[in-house]
């Protein structure tokens, strides 16, 4: 459903991403790994429209999306999280989820001002969806807390819930396990697998936590210094000599 062909991104004299290709099928978890500074997040930023790639093609469900503005890409169903949590921290947890659903809501000002029945109905729907996802990530009791006051692990889960209420087709997670303790990482594992199994969402994952990556990925792409190094199933990647040398370490 997503295909990246020969993606390149140049910042002045620096070629941050060089001829990277990857593809994601429906119902699949694909990981991107690589050393720090390898260009993983840059690939993400190109895919989600934050950067306009200097070369290559990105096709989502057969349509070219490279260079489209970020909010339009997100409306197509390609939604991302961030390496550093980016919540609306002064808004409550449930408001965070309501904001994310705005393209499902009638944005007609007059309808909202006089509360037409169809507006109320849709408002209730988005509240229900928010409640469902809060329950799903175990934050229902925190619904009216300010998002900035949540513990770090909870903020991570809220960020994923916030993406999920937009009903994405493809979810891009940028280091979702960063800063989580082992128990929280295990929960996250379960959650990501369930996103794929129960909600039929494909996932692209950037992650440094190898236990997480190896356990849940269907396929792995390795990037080193902006260039693709290897790709394949977790087992293939684990045994690839180049990958071991560049990244996993010879132990």
């Amino acid at each position, binding site marked *: 459903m997503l295909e990246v062909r020969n993606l390149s991104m140049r910042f002045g004299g620096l070629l941050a991403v060089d001829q990277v290709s990857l593809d994601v099928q429906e119902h699949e978890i694909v990981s991107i790994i690589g050393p720090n500074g390898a260009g993983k997040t840059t690939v993400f930023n190109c895919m989600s429209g934050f950067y306009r790639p200097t070369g290559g093609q990105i096709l989502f469900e057969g349509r070219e999306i490279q260079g489209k503005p970020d909010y339009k890409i997100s409306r197509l169903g390609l939604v991302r999280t961030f390496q550093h949590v980016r919540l609306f921290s002064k*808004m409550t947890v449930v*408001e965070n989820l309501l904001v994310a659903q705005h393209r499902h809501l009638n*944005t007609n000002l007059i309808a909202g001002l006089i509360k037409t029945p169809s507006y109320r109905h849709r408002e209730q729907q988005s509240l229900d969806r928010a409640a469902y996802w809060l329950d799903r990530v175990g934050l229902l009791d925190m619904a009216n807390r300010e998002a900035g006051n949540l513990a770090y692990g909870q903020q991570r889960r809220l960020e994923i819930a916030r993406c999920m209420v937009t009903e994405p087709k493809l979810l891009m997670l940028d280091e979702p396990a960063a800063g989580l303790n082992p128990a929280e990482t295990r929960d996250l594992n379960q959650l990501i697998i369930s996103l794929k199994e129960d909600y039929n969402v494909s996932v692209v994952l950037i992650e440094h936590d190898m236990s997480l990556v190896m356990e849940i990925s269907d396929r792995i792409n390795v990037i080193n210094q902006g260039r693709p190094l290897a790709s394949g199933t977790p087992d293939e990647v684990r045994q690839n000599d180049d990958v071991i040398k560049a990244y996993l370490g010879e132990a």
Partner: protein
Amino acid sequence: MAAHNLKHALFCAMVTLVIAYPILGLNLEAEGTQVILEGADTLTVVSVLVAALAVFLFQLFRDTIMGSLGKLPAINPFAHREPMEQNKRQRLETIALLILVAVALVWPFFVSRGSVDLATLVLIYIMLALGLNVVVGLAGLLDLGYVAFYAVGAYTFALLHQYFGVSFWVALPIGALLAATFGFLLGFPVLRLRGDYLAIVTLGFGEIIRILLNNMTWLTGGPNGIGGIPDPTVFGMEFGRRVKEEGNVSFHEMFDVAYSGSHKIIVLYLIALVLALFTALVIRRFTKMPVGRSWEALREDEIAARSLGLSRTAVKLSAFTIGAFFAGFAGTVFASKQGFISPESFVFLESAIILAIVVLGGMGSQLGVILAAVAVIILPELAREFSEYRMLIFGAAMVLMMVWRPQGLLPMRRIHIELNKQE
């Protein structure tokens, strides 16, 4: 630490002396054709020295003083009380607000004309501050040229009346919509700007409008302003002694009561009250709607908001447009209240005062902004003897507020949203 404090305190005292002595301690006296410099009397010199000493002592013990200032809220007996239950509090608030509105409706019939006139001015500022609160408090876009939209509203009414004889009620929506259009137009060039840059551009915009009004003498009369702006009518009734427009009747003849000059003022007050209430209710509703939440989302984190499919263009433009709309409202009422407007009423200071009201009240908080509007407009009127020191007191109040209560008088409270439990 102590040595550092001493050095800093000495420096501050020096600065005080250097600034205060030439300004207060030296006088220019005209002697025939010559101007000579004279030292001021002893009292002034002594006061300058005392001021320098005060600055020195304050800076020396700054940490202690600021520390105790920070503890001040603890004096408030309610500070550590358990918060009231959600629905109980809401009911109490509703009742309190209803009583407040009822009092505001009846009150003008028992007080002097001057008070009612002042109250009308307060209501105009409440409308302005509520509108700016959308732009600055909710959407987080620092707008220093807000007064331009106020001017657009006022001048729309004045010009429409002068050239086409349009009445208040027709001019009200036109003024507001035209101001909103200007807000929309200003929104375009500043889409990509944030923070300081945005502030500078909006500041420039405010000045452009004022200077245009000043210089387009063929249309606006320039610095002479426009006079003879009519008062609002109610169902074709006028409140002056004699009917000015054909077809209208005058209020005192219609109901056969003695003519009184206060009728006109009370009616204007009531109209302003209704419009201010309308403004408050509409904006309150907006904050609970998608559009209001997306303003706040953009303020909190623009990148995250865009990654969730919110268009920066639409969100920013809607904030500017809606904020400007209510400034247009206020401008129309202002023109009608004064009967005469000139570019002098729309200087930068007005923008600064409206912004100060929003910051003092607590960004985003409607009740706070209303309280602050009342305080900022009424207090200078009460302390007329000190009018020379108005700006001094104003500045000191701002500094103290920022130290003591940076979140404003009544910080914004999040709306509690009840969710259905999942089975």
